[in-house]
């Protein structure tokens, strides 16, 4: 693992926690979050193992220690402008598997989103 790579995932974790802080302020006092769900595309430039490890490091011994992390990995998908076929771009092959059109459009895989938080009740 390159140190620079983990550094990147740490800054992503702190962006997530900053946003959760903001969301919590809009909830009734004393609200606790038990889980956060992230959506990470394969083109997001994020290493999932680093992200999990960085998350554990950052929440440890803080108010977020009990927060679980769920990650949905989103594969790269393409749409063919010629025939409308939508397909998973396996091994970076982006030509349409149905009609052979070479220039297809990226429709998924760049996500780096907070999908949900679960409230502890």
């Amino acid at each position, binding site marked *: 693992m390159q140190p620079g790579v983990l550094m990147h995932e740490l800054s992503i974790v702190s962006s997530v926690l900053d946003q959760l802080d903001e969301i919590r302020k809009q909830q009734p006092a004393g609200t606790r979050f038990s889980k956060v769900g992230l959506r990470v595309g394969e083109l997001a430039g994020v290493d999932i193992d680093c992200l999990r490890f960085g998350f554990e490091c950052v929440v440890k011994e803080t108010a977020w220690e009990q927060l679980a992390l769920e990650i949905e990995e989103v594969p790269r998908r393409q749409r063919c402008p010629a025939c409308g076929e939508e397909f998973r771009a396996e091994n970076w092959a982006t030509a349409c598997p149905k009609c052979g059109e070479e220039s297809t459009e990226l429709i998924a895989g*760049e996500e780096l989103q907070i999908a949900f938080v679960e409230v502890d009740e």
Partner: protein
Amino acid sequence: MSQILVEKKVLNENQKLASELREKFREHRILVVNIISSPGSGKTTLLERTLERLDKSRRIVVLTGDLQTENDAKRLAQWGFPVKQIITGGTCHLDARMIEKHLAEWPLETIDLLIIENVGNLVCPSSYDLGEHFKIVMLSVTEGEDKPLKYPSIFVKSELMILSKVDLLPYVPFSAELAKKNARSVHPGIEIIETSSKGDGLAAWMEWLDAKLAAVKRGELVSA
């Protein structure tokens, strides 16, 4: 247990700032390019060769990012254009806040082109929108041809790939054709220019920049 749907980008704060920057760049018709590569691919050298060829009346500024030292800014400043170093102090990428902060002292109405030289890293800079029109990825022939397959994110997001140090091709086991094929397999529409510090491809690169500058001036080029 209940669930709150959030559906927000993780880098929401950066995205907001980048959108504000983009709006300013649009208003002042400034072309902004964000150059990204591994350390040592030749970003600073390309910029030196670019700046030395440009007429000093051109309204061009450069922001250059590194973890430490002002070395790159010193190298680039000798060509007479305003250059500012962004020292990230360890952070592996530039973010929109750093750009906003370092641009603050320059009156935007006096700028036509902002060149951002990102921190040498093919991973993290690809996640951070800086409000630029184009990301440009640079790959040198002393690296592996499979870089586009190993780091697809940045190749997918870049409009242009600069294949640098092509004067070394006779001496290194590197297939330019394979590197280009790999880049096109992850991003079929990517433009490619081959350059070297000896001057190869610089005319094509300058033409590329001038065409984009003209489009921004005409208000035709608006970045998303």
